[in-house]
C-alpha cells in the first residue's frame, strides 16, 4: 500500500456490478436467459420466466396440463395452461389472435382455422427456431412428423407455423359387429352394403344401427365426396361453393335419411361425447368419427362393448373413398414477447419423449410422431380386437395426402360455409325442406357470406 494513502473499502455493489446484474436479470425475464445461463453454467435455463397458453379440452391437453410440473421442474419456467371447450376456445383464440396481443405465448392451432390464422399472419414462423441448432438440436426430429399432418400448418412458401400434436383419421367404429354377423352380413365396404347393414341391424338388441353428432360439416363430408360432390369447386384457388350440385344434394338426402331412420332420438343435438357414450353404453352400433374420439369404445374400463368393437375404413361411395383427416398443432402467436420460452415448451410438448410417454402410458391414440407410430410396442397396443389401428390411421393419411381432398377444410372462409352445411342437414333431416331446396338455400347463403368476405365467386 502506497505510503500516506489509506485503502477505502467499498460496501455493496459497484455501479458496474449493478449494471451487469440488471442486464442479466433482463435477459432472463425475456426468455433469452438460456444462452446466458448456459454460459454461466446455471441448472434451470428459464428460471423466473412465466408463459401463458391455451388449448381446447382433449385427452392430450388434459395430460399435458397434468405433466406441466415436470417441464417446470426441468426448465424453471412457469407455464399457465388454459383449457376450454372446443367452440369456446376457437372463438376466444380467434379474437385474441386478431389483436396480435401478448396475452398468450403459445396456442393451439385448430385444424379448421389454420388457414385463416396462419394466412392472416397471426402466428410466428417457426423456421428460424427449427434451423438454429442452438435452439433445436437435430435429434429433436423436425421431420419425424406425419407429412399430411404438418402440411396443414405451412404457408404457401412451405414455412412451418406449428407442429402437430394430433393426427386423427376418420374411421368407422362398429360397436356391435356381432349383430352384423348374426344378420349374415360383413363389415360394409361400400354404400350399398352399408345401407343393407343398417336396415338389418337397426333396433336389434335395442341397439340403434348408427349414431352421429351435430357437426355435420365434419361427419357428412366424406359422404358428399363419396357421391362426387365437394364443398368448393377447387380449393384453395377457386372457392365457389358447390353445395347445390346434384351429387351434393344426393349425398345430403342419403345422410339425412340415415340420421332420421337409424339413429337414437335426438341425434341432431348430440355432441361428440354423447355420440361416443351411446356406443360405449351399447345403445348405438356404427359411427364414423376420428379415432381419438372413439377409442373409449375399446376401453374395457369404460365400455360395455370393448371386447366386441372393431374399427374399419369408412365405406367407399360410387366416386371413391374419402375418409377425413385432421390435425391440431401448437404455435406461437405473433404478439408473444416470450417466443424463446414458448418454443422451448412446444419442443417438449410435441417432442419424442413426451409423445412416447403419452402413447405408451396413457390412452393417447393419435400421435403425429412417426417414430412413435412405428414403434412395435405402440403398434401392439393399438391393435384392438385384431385390427391394427396404426396401419388404418396411416393408410387414411396416405389416401388423403394423395387425393388432396381435405383442402376444403383449411381455407379461411370454411367456418361460414360449414355453418350452412350444418343447417341444411338439420333442415333436411327434420323434413322442414327437401334436400334440393335446402342445399340450394345453403348455396345461396354461402355465396352471400363469401362475397361479404371478399372472396371471388364464379359467375
Amino acid at each position, binding site marked *: 500500500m502506497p505510503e500516506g494513502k489509506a485503502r477505502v473499502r467499498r460496501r455493496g455493489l459497484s455501479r458496474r456490478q449493478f449494471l451487469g446484474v440488471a442486464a442479466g436479470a433482463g435477459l432472463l425475464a425475456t426468455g433469452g436467459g438460456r444462452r446466458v445461463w448456459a454460459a454461466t453454467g446455471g441448472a434451470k435455463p428459464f428460471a423466473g420466466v412465466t408463459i401463458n397458453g391455451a388449448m381446447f379440452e382433449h385427452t392430450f391437453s388434459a395430460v399435458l396440463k397434468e405433466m406441466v410440473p415436470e417441464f417446470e421442474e426441468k426448465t424453471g419456467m412457469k407455464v399457465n395452461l388454459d383449457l376450454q371447450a372446443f367452440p369456446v376456445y376457437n372463438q376466444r383464440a380467434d379474437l385474441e389472435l386478431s389483436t396480435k396481443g401478448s396475452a398468450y405465448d403459445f396456442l393451439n392451432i385448430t385444424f379448421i382455422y389454420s388457414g385463416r390464422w396462419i394466412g392472416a399472419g397471426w402466428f410466428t414462423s417457426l423456421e428460424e427456431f427449427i434451423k438454429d441448432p442452438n435452439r433445436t438440436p437435430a435429434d429433436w426430429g423436425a421431420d419425424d412428423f406425419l407429412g399430411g399432418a404438418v402440411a396443414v400448418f405451412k404457408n404457401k412458401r412451405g414455412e412451418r407455423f406449428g407442429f402437430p400434436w394430433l393426427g386423427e383419421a376418420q374411421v368407422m367404429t362398429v360397436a356391435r359387429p356381432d349383430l352384423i354377423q348374426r344378420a349374415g352380413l360383413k363389415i360394409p365396404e361400400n354404400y350399398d352394403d352399408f345401407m343393407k347393414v343398417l336396415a338389418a341391424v337397426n333396433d336389434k338388441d335395442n341397439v340403434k344401427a348408427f349414431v352421429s353428432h351435430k357437426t355435420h360439416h365434419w361427419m357428412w363430408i366424406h359422404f358428399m365426396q363419396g357421391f362426387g360432390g365437394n364443398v368448393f369447386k377447387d380449393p384453395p384457388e377457386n372457392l365457389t361453393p358447390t353445395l347445390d350440385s346434384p351429387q351434393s344434394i344426393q349425398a345430403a338426402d342419403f345422410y339425412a335419411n340415415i340420421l332420421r331412420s337409424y339413429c337414437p332420438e335426438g341425434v341432431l*343435438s348430440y355432441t361428440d361425447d354423447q355420440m361416443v*357414450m351411446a356406443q360405449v353404453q351399447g345403445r348405438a352400433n356404427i359411427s364414423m368419427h376420428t379415432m381419438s374420439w372413439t377409442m373409449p369404445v375399446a376401453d374395457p374400463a369404460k365400455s360395455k362393448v370393448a371386447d366386441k368393437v372393431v374399427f374399419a375404413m369408412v365405406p367407399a361411395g360410387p366416386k371413391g373413398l374419402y375418409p377425413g383427416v385432421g390435425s391440431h398443432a401448437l404455435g406461437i402467436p405473433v404478439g408473444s414477447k416470450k417466443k424463446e420460452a414458448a418454443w422451448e415448451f412446444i419442443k417438449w410438448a410435441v417432442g419424442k419423449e413426451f409423445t412416447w410417454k403419452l402413447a405408451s402410458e396413457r390412452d393417447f391414440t393419435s400421435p403425429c410422431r412417426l417414430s412413435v407410430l412405428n414403434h412395435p410396442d405402440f403398434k401392439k397396443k393399438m391393435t384392438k380386437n385384431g385390427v391394427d389401428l396404426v396401419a388404418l390411421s396411416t393408410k387414411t393419411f396416405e389416401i388423403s395426402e394423395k387425393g388432396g381432398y381435405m383442402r376444403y377444410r383449411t381455407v379461411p372462409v370454411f367456418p361460414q360455409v360449414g355453418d350452412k352445411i350444418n343447417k341444411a342437414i338439420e333442415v333436411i333431416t327434420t323434413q322442414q325442406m327437401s334436400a334440393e331446396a335446402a342445399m340450394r338455400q345453403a348455396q345461396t347463403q354461402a355465396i352471400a357470406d363469401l362475397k361479404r368476405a*371478399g372472396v371471388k365467386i364464379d359467375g
Partner: protein
Amino acid sequence: MSECTGSIATVEPSRSASRPVRGWRAKRQRAYLLGLLPALAVLAVVTVAPAVYLLVTSLTPLSLVNPETAWDFSAPHRNYLSLLQDDRFRNSAWIQVKLSVFTVLLQLLAGLAVAMLLNARWRFVEAVRTTFLIPMVLPPIVVAIIWKVLYTPDISPIHRFLAAVGRPAGAMITSPGWALWAIIIADVWEWFPFTMLMLLAALQLMPDEPLEAARIDGAGPWQLFLWIVLPLLRPTLLVAALFRLVESIKAFPLIYILTEGGPGTVTEVTNYYAFLQAFNFSYLGFASAITVVMVAATFLMSWLIIRMVGMEVDVE
C-alpha cells in the same frame, strides 16, 4: 322605501332581494351537476362510447382478418342493405318476436299466479316461498345444463318416466315444431320468480280499503281481481313486462346450450345470429349492424308499450 303608519310596517320585496334567490338556485343546480359529472363521465365511457363505436363499426365491413377495414366508410349503407336482403335475419327477427311474446306473457301469468298464492299468508306457503326463487338465482348456464339433461331422451328422467308409462316422447329440442317451445318453457321456469317478486311486493302494498268496500258492495273474488286488483297491479305489470321484454331479447345461454339456433333456424333469434356473425365468422361490421337494429327496435318497442298502456290508475 317603507312607510310607517302606526300599524305593522309592510315592506315590499325589492328587486335586489329576488336576485339572491335566483342566484342561489343556479348555484344549487351547478352543484348538483358537478356532483353528477363523475357518474356521467363513467356512464359516457362504459355506455355511450361503446354504443357510438358500435354504430360507427356498423358502417364498415370490419372483419377480424382484415383489420384495415375498421375505417372503410366507402359504402356505409352496405351492411344495412345486406340486412334487408337477408332472409335469415328476417327469420331471426320473427323467431325473436315469438320468443319474446310467449316468454313475457307466460312469465307474467305464472308470476301473477304464484304471487297471488304467496299473498294468501298461509304458513306453509310462506315457508316454501324461498324455494320459488331458486331458478332465478341459478347461473343461466346451470339452468341451460339442467334443461339439456331434461330434454335429452337418453338421460332425461321425464323421458324415462314417459317411456315407462307407455307414452315415449321424442326429443323436443330437435323437433322443428317443439324446439322453440322447449326454449320458452325453460326460460319461463328460470324467470317467473322475477315477475313473482315484483307482483308479490305490489300485492302486499295494495291498500285494503277498495277491496273491503267492494266486498261490502257484494263483489265476488273474480270481480275483485278483475276490477280492483288487476288495475292496481297494472303499473307493476307494465314495469315487469318491460324488464322481461328487454331481457328476452338477450336470451342466449339457453339457445347456445340447447339448440344452437336449430334444428335449422327455428330457434335462431336475432342476437344469436349476431353472435354467429361476430364470433364464428368474424364479420364484426355486419354483426354491429344487426345489433344496432336490435337496439333501435328495443327502444321503439319500449316507448310504444309505455305510450299505449300508460301508468296512471283510477280505481273509482
